[in-house]
């Protein structure tokens, strides 16, 4: 029995230096220097193994992959996971001796392994069980009592460890150290008493802990959300893509009887290499949250009352019909599939006729920038020996699997990262150079880096960074995004254009965070753009005319972005605000404006899955289907289009967003031209744009494109932007950085039982140098005041925060930094006072 789960496919090696070896009498051509176990697997000979994993360095611990290898000195038993192929190597993987050795290894591994397979989660998909059947002796000669440990002990909030089942293969501990960089589990003790464990009372608190459950070759590590929920043979599986963030990791959805029970990572070579973050892996728990919206709601006085779809849609249509198109705004759309995003773009811009449409919530980068920069893929950024200029959000917190890829590029492939950040991040320790800038001063730092003006200067780190960038030339790649929500986007845009102008050939990976934000923008959910990057006002009259004839109408002029829409609403100029899976009250960086905007719009229509802070203020609430509940496609931050598959039915009468758009269009007297399936919308989008032209339904269905299709488009013209002018701070004030943590009070993550408790406590992180004049120490309570508001928070001293800067986390349960931020300000200055 040969077990090859989707997560452990052979590496996609391209043979550039062919050598011939003989395996079981058959000559095969393989890549010189690759590992024998890989070469055999790719060519159809599966050598049993436990410790070897294609995405980790081999250790040769389990001895299961012993084969007879003859390199001219006669055959000898050697572990095939440790041996590189050499020309003329003769290998026997099935000889009598090899079988005998495999018998012996299995017998030893089973000496202390309990026979609790009938109650073990792994039973049925267990490499030890499978290989004991296929390669084991059948019967054990051991009669002694087995070794006993306390049955499963929790080693983190989500992962349980059963040490009796462990075969000490070093997969989880290697993963923790090598891949995740969180060596919080380790072999403890010695000899027959060796066990995997954590330090007492220090849990395996890694953002990637769930991967150890997936790669455990026995049932030693199990995940709390899946324990005792199903047996593998009861599961139905489809491949899909995680939309928890914009990295777009490929996953398998396992379900049983219409309940999603588990996500596993799929080895997608250009993206996630089989890894997932815990937020993505356990995110399915929110699908069945108790307060999931199941039926439409319509406001009746102070409360939202259940209503029929017909009544709710009629109420919505009535409000839209009564308003002029210019007084209607649509915020959101990055939760949607590409198809739904296109349907909503067509509804908003074609049927309703408003261009006040923005998929981002003031926390991303303008569509002009996303479309205007030459694009890099993750593989291009993480290429061996590459130089990466990173000026974006902390990838460990916001784009965790991108962090794993960057870490691997640095640790294993000789890449070098130059990090520009307002304060230390999870990437800092992997960076060749990490430069901190005060909020508002990114422009000057970038100028001195790319102009080379300071390369002989006094700052050694700066000149090292400048030299690295100069040496990289046009192979430089840049990851760009919003590291600080308390600064507006202008400084980042200015930095991007400055780098683009100074370094010819440079490529950018735009690190926007939300699931399908890229797809939403490309499908037209951005002010001033029609699908396929067609600018309303940018001289693309032919394409605009084409959409006019396809849609019947297009907006005449560019509309407002989210900030503009909220301002208009706050001033009473917005009749209808449509929230498309958006919660500006939690997510828009300026809380006061969000509050005034949502309150000021005459009618608020929310399409969502959960009763978020904004949804409970709406007048009409339409329940939407979520991940795993609808068919479609999504686009990740690279522009990679992958397929989303439905596995379960949406709760109650919730339906996909495109269907809601189509129904609403019908009520408004329009027609989205979709009959029964979202693929009709996709076909229309693919046919009507150049951007998506190569990613048609048939192309995506081709197994050769299982990793998705990267859409390519010429960068649109993007004018150089000046860095904002920021006046110097007064002596007593600090500049605020607002960043994110992986676990926060977000709509989905706070509804995952196993993860909701992991959100950290809010703290104002300060440099000890700023704290000591005020006499502050850890956990002291301070009041933080900006020109826009104030809050009370506890202090945490943190030497990774530079002097003059203070850090708060966005969207935690307490001390909302949105109270301090004004969306117009280039920086947010704060004062900290004791008490």
């Amino acid at each position, binding site marked *: 029995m040969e077990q090859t789960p989707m997560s452990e496919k052979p590496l996609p090696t391209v043979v550039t230096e062919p050598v011939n070896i003989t395996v079981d009498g058959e000559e095969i051509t393989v890549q010189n220097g690759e590992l024998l176990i890989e070469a055999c697997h790719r060519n159809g000979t599966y050598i049993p193994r436990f410790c070897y994993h294609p995405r980790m360095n081999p250790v040769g611990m389990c001895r299961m992959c012993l084969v007879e290898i003859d390199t001219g000195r006669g055959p000898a038993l050697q572990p095939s996971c440790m041996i590189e192929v050499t020309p003329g190597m003769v290998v026997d993987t099935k000889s009598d001796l090899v079988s005998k050795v495999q018998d012996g290894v299995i017998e030893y591994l089973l000496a202390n392994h309990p026979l609790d397979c009938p109650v073990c989660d792994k039973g049925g998909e267990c490499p030890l069980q499978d290989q004991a059947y296929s390669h084991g002796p059948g019967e054990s000669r051991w009669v002694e009592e087995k070794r006993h440990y306390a049955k499963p002990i929790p080693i983190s909030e989500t992962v349980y460890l059963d040490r009796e089942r462990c075969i000490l293969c070093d997969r989880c501990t290697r993963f923790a150290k090598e891949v995740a960089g969180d*060596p919080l589990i380790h*072999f403890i003790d010695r000899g027959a008493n060796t066990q995997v464990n954590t*330090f007492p009372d220090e849990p395996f608190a890694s953002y990637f802990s769930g991967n150890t459950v997936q790669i455990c070759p026995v049932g030693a590590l199990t995940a709390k959300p899946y324990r005792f929920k199903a047996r593998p043979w009861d599961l139905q599986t489809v491949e899909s893509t995680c939309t928890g963030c914009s990295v777009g990791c490929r996953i398998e959805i396992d379900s049983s009887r219409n309940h999603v029970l588990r996500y596993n990572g799929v080895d997608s070579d250009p993206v996630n290499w089989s890894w997932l973050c815990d937020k993505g892996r356990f995110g399915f728990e929110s699908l069945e949250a108790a307060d999931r919206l199941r039926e439409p709601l319509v406001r009746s006085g102070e409360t939202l009352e259940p209503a029929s779809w017909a009544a709710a849609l009629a109420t919505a249509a009535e409000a839209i019909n009564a308003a002029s198109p210019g007084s209607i705004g649509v915020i959101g759309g990055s939760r949607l599939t590409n198809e739904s995003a296109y349907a909503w773009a067509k509804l908003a811009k074609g049927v309703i006729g408003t261009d006040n449409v923005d998929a981002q919530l003031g926390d991303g980068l303008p569509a002009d920038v996303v479309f205007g920069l030459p694009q890099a893929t993750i593989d291009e950024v993480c290429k061996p020996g590459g130089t990466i200029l990173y000026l974006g959000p902390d990838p460990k917190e916001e784009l965790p699997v991108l962090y794993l890829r960057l870490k691997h590029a640095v640790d294993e492939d000789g890449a070098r990262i130059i990090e520009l950040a307002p304060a230390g991040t999870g990437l800092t320790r992997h960076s060749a150079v990490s430069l901190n800038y005060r909020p508002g001063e990114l422009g000057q730092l970038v100028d001195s880096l790319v102009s080379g003006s300071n390369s002989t200067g006094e700052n050694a780190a700066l000149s090292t960074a400048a030299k690295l960038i100069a040496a990289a030339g046009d192979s430089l790649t840049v990851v760009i995004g919003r590291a600080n929500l308390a600064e507006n986007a202008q400084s980042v845009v200015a930095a991007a254009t400055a780098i683009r102008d100074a370094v010819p050939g440079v490529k950018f990976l735009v690190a926007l965070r939300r699931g399908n934000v890229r797809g939403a923008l490309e499908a037209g959910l951005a002010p001033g753009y029609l699908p396929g990057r067609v600018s309303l006002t940018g001289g693309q009259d032919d394409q605009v005319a084409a959409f006019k004839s396809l849609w019947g109408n297009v907006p005449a002029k560019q509309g407002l972005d989210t900030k503009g829409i909220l301002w208009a609403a706050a001033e009473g100029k917005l009749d209808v605000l449509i929230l498309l899976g958006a919660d500006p009250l939690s997510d828009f960086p300026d809380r006061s404006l969000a509050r005034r905007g949502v309150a000021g719009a005459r009618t608020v229509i929310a399409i969502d899955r959960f009763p978020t802070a904004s949804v409970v203020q709406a007048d009409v609430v339409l329940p939407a289907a979520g991940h795993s509940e609808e068919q479609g496609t999504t686009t990740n931050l690279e522009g990679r289009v992958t397929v989303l598959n439905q596995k379960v039915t949406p709760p109650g009468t919730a339906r996909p967003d495109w269907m809601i758009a189509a129904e609403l269009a019908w009520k408004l007297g329009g027609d989205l031209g979709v009959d029964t399936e979202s693929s009709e919308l996709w076909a229309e989008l693919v046919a009507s744009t150049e951007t998506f032209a190569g990613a048609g339904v048939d192309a995506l269905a081709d197994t050769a494109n299982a990793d998705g299709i990267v859409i390519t488009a010429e960068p649109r013209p993007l004018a150089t932007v000046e860095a904002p002018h920021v006046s110097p701070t007064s002596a007593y004030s600090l500049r605020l950085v607002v960043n994110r943590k992986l676990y926060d009070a977000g709509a989905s993550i706070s509804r995952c039982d196993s993860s909701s408790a992991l959100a950290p406590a809010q703290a104002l992180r300060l440099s000890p140098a700023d704290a000591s004049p005020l006499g502050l120490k850890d956990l002291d309570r301070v009041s933080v005041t900006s020109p826009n508001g104030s809050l009370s928070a506890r202090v945490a001293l943190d030497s990774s925060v530079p002097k003059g800067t203070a850090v708060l986390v966005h969207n935690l349960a307490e001390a909302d930094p949105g109270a301090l931020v004004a969306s117009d300000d280039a920086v947010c200055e704060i004062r900290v006072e004791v008490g």
Partner: protein
Amino acid sequence: MSRLTPENVELAKQIIRRYPRPKSALIPLCHLAQEQDGHLADDAMVHIGELVGVTSAEVLGTASFYEMFKRHEVGKYCVNICTNISCQLMGGEELLEHAEQTLGIRSGSTTNDGLFTLEDVECIAACTEAPALQVNYRYFHRISNDDFDQMIDELRSGRLDDVVPPHGVLAKVRQDLAEEQIANITPPETQVMPRWIADEAAKNDPAASEGGQA
């Protein structure tokens, strides 16, 4: 029990400086902590991890490999009686039984006054002097039951303080390297490749020979 004292932190920093990588000082620092507390306390392992830049789990993983790092409190004197073949033939097991009776405890436990921990151990390489035992890893040879009782009395009364320091103390004199002696440790990343390795590498890859020329 406790983290390292301020004096021991200074000592720890000196020890760390002797190595090209801080992590290499992990075991010497475990000894330092064991000398301070008589055993290797959990808090001390956390502290050591902070000092050398590894996680507490990694410190525990390394320390727990070695039986001589005690992770629980032991007596001031750790008495190890050999029961391997030579000592066994010469009465080691009888000596162990006598020791259990004298101290009133089973092997593996500690007297109520916290002075003695008794252990039976495998060969301690003193076969010619059997039956042998160690007190805090200091040898006592050809021990009869009477010798044992006398030794215990002397330990109790402090007459052997010069010979046997409390558990955890490796040596009475701490090795102290002068600053100039530790100054020339080359960090691994800047080390020059030895000639014989560089030449071999150059045969396969001309670009790799740079290290040898430097």
